[in-house]
């Protein structure tokens, strides 16, 4: 197991190098002058040129890339924000926990809604309940999350005045952003649960369990669900990884100071170090989340680890 984890971690290194190079290249190929955006339209060309020199932006491309990569490897230095000179690592450190909370709770919400809906749909296949659940899931999938976010704000903050419209200062502030983020994932989880449950409840061992007189609830939740959930957990893990980097719309609308909003603000003024640092961080985080999902997958389904051990013995 340890070898497997180490191997996966080592495989992340070329991925990170590739991401760093691609992001670095794209930012420098972009036509606009980032320093002009940062200093504002009233800064003179001399002032812009002076800051470009100070930031090393007039150096050749590979010199800039080498210096940047060296900074990351030797000092874990992703540069400083062009705007307020704050180290990018500090910015990410301050904002990541907030995005992490949002991603975790919205994934849990998606699971809490999607899994029961999927089970109901599977158990009551082709019934009215099944159709209603499917329609609901499709509605959640079709609604753009930014629209849902604004509607939630208008209904719950403006008209009902029961929940705040923005910020991230406690449980009350988390409710609307979590709903807006989580409902989009419900459809995928529900449909995956449904199709896997349908497959599992047709298995012979389920028929055997019924023949032995076990209660239906026990059969569904103790025997069928465990096997059906394996791909669902994989899906939830991937959704979670996606949300770590993809909740920028929600964070902007709800003014949540997470990684997504940081990236939106940085992109709009071409704050290159922040964009680079943020994207690299998300790529790494996604890679690590995938690794964790694979490990969890192995624990849930012992056959996975058994197959690793068999392969290792054969070598």
């Amino acid at each position, binding site marked *: 197991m340890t070898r497997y984890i180490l191997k996966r971690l080592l495989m992340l290194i070329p991925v990170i190098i590739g991401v760093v190079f691609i992001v670095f290249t794209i930012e420098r190929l972009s*036509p*606009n*002058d*980032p320093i*002009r*955006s*940062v*200093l*504002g*339209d*009233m*800064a*003179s*060309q*001399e*002032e812009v040129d*002076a*800051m470009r020199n100070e930031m090393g932006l007039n150096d050749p491309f590979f010199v800039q890339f080498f210096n940047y990569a060296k900074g990351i490897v030797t000092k874990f230095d992703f540069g400083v924000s062009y*705007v*307020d*000179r704050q180290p990018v690592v500090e*910015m990410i450190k*301050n*904002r990541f*926990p907030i995005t992490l*909370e949002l991603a*975790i*709770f919205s994934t*849990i919400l998606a699971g809490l809604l999607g899994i029961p809906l999927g089970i109901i749909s599977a158990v009551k296949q082709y019934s009215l309940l099944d159709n209603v659940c499917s329609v609901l899931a499709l509605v959640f999938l079709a609604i753009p999350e930014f629209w849902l976010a*604004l509607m939630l*704000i*208008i209904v719950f*903050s*403006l008209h009902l*005045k029961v929940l*705040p*419209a*923005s*910020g*991230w*200062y*406690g*449980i009350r*502030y*988390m409710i609307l952003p979590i709903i807006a983020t989580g409902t989009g994932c419900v459809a995928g989880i529900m449909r995956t649960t449904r199709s896997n449950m349908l497959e599992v409840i047709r298995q012979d061992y389920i028929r055997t369990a019924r023949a032995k007189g076990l209660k239906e609830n026990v059969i569904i939740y103790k025997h069928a669900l*465990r096997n059906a959930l394996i791909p669902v957990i994989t899906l939830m893990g991937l959704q979670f990884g996606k949300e770590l980097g993809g909740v920028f719309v929600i964070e*902007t*609308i*709800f*003014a949540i*100071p997470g990684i997504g*909003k*940081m990236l*939106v*603000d940085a992109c*709009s*003024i*071409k704050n290159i170090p922040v964009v680079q640092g943020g994207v690299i961080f998300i790529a790494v985080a996604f890679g690590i989340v995938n690794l964790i999902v694979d490990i969890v997958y192995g*624990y*849930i389904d012992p056959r996975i680890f058994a197959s690793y051990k068999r392969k290792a013995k054969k070598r």
Partner: protein
Amino acid sequence: MKKFICIMLTALMCISLTACGGSGTSGSTGNSSGSSESGTIHRDTLTVAIQREPKSLIPYESNDTGTDYTTSQVYETLIKYDDDLNMIPGLAESWEQVDDTHYRFHLRENVKFHNGDDFTADDVLYTFQQIVNSKAAASTMGPIDIENCKIEDNHTIVIALTKAYPAFLRLCTLPISSIVCKEAMEKDPEGYAKNPIGTGPFKFVEWVSGDHLTYSVNTDWWGGTINYDKLILRYIPEATTRAVEAESGGVDIAQIAVSDAQSVDSNNDVSLVTEQILNTTYLSFNCSIEPFNNVKVRQAISLAIDSDAIVKATYYGYANTAKSFMASSMWGYYDADSEYSGYNVEKAKELMKEAGYENGFSCSLVTYNNQSMAEMIQSYLAEIGITVTLNVTDFSNWLDQLVNGKQQLYIGGWTTASGDPSEAFDAMNSANFGSGGNRSFYSNSEADKLINTIDTSTDDNTRKTACVDLQKLLGDECVTVNMNDGVNFYAVSKSISNFKPSQTQRCDFTAITFAAK
């Protein structure tokens, strides 16, 4: 499996406990209130939703609205503006012009910085030394001759310029000229940048980047008493969210967009406050390329566009149509009422024919925040045969195009933060192409001559005459097709009085009083 689920649930519970904690501000309006001895209501907190974060907490390090807005709570300038844009004492009680290039300031006594240090002429000289070396402020503050600036005593200083520059006094109202504490800055410049110290009505407490800034009231402020203890500026980039926060009581005051103005106006819990600002929005051209280097083409375009209708449609009646490149409340403003500023499609077609473009032409129009306006302009110009392709882009790309002369038509705006016509007409000076401010790449020797008079003449009448003549010339030349005078919109809780937004876009929160709920 059960063990695994238990471990996961425990971990989730721990995370949720940290979430329950909730750091920083609750974002709600004043938590408790009481009456002072005089009967005015006193509250804990005033919360304001702002559109932009600062780029720096040091005033001369950045010249942008977000920084101005936030630093102007902590720092003060030598001179301020009253509601009618008249210069009034700030940290300078009085001033006089010694000669064309020297200004003497008599500084206010018994003023202290937030750390207890006395405010003296040393701090003023130090600040101007930093300004001269600052990438963001040096070119804005005019030709300061720092070597010949002289401290006469603890509260008197003479600022020297390298040449006559009558705009200088008005530039001393800009937030980038705010006075910093020399001793604190020299002792720990990095610490100062994170914990700024000024003489202003509010003391800096914290900046949670991406979220909010907190200030506590300076109870020793020379300017008077403030009716609350804490000021929170919450950064909410989404305009609708800011409006909803104000309407739902989440914040006391919010800067809002024009699209939310009508909704706020009809809400019983908040008032809509509008303030005309020192800014105009306009359609302009790249006058260095064909066909826009032809004055008849520009005049035709001006006549083909009904600016009144566009402004009414895009600002719902809350803004006036601009009659000049300058904001109408500025010193030196003149309504040129050019014959080309009306709406006359037939005359526009004749001018196009005279210019040799009877069949029209194709061009592009770039904008970053005025899509509705751009679409209306596109349909107006179609009537005289001009096919406009819209390029709605982000600010960075828009600015890049304008600075490098890649645009054909563009919608832009000009903000004259100092209120002085020199700053306004920088944008028409042929020495300032591109990054200097002249994004229309307009070149006219007569205009340059008038701009030079405005920049250097120390006689107000001569300057004013030059301003008038220049505005007449620009009106006839149609360098810009003026749209609207800039307006800022605020949603203000009805429990608040004496909120004073300023034409310079820096709001005064010190005079706010609260009604009993």
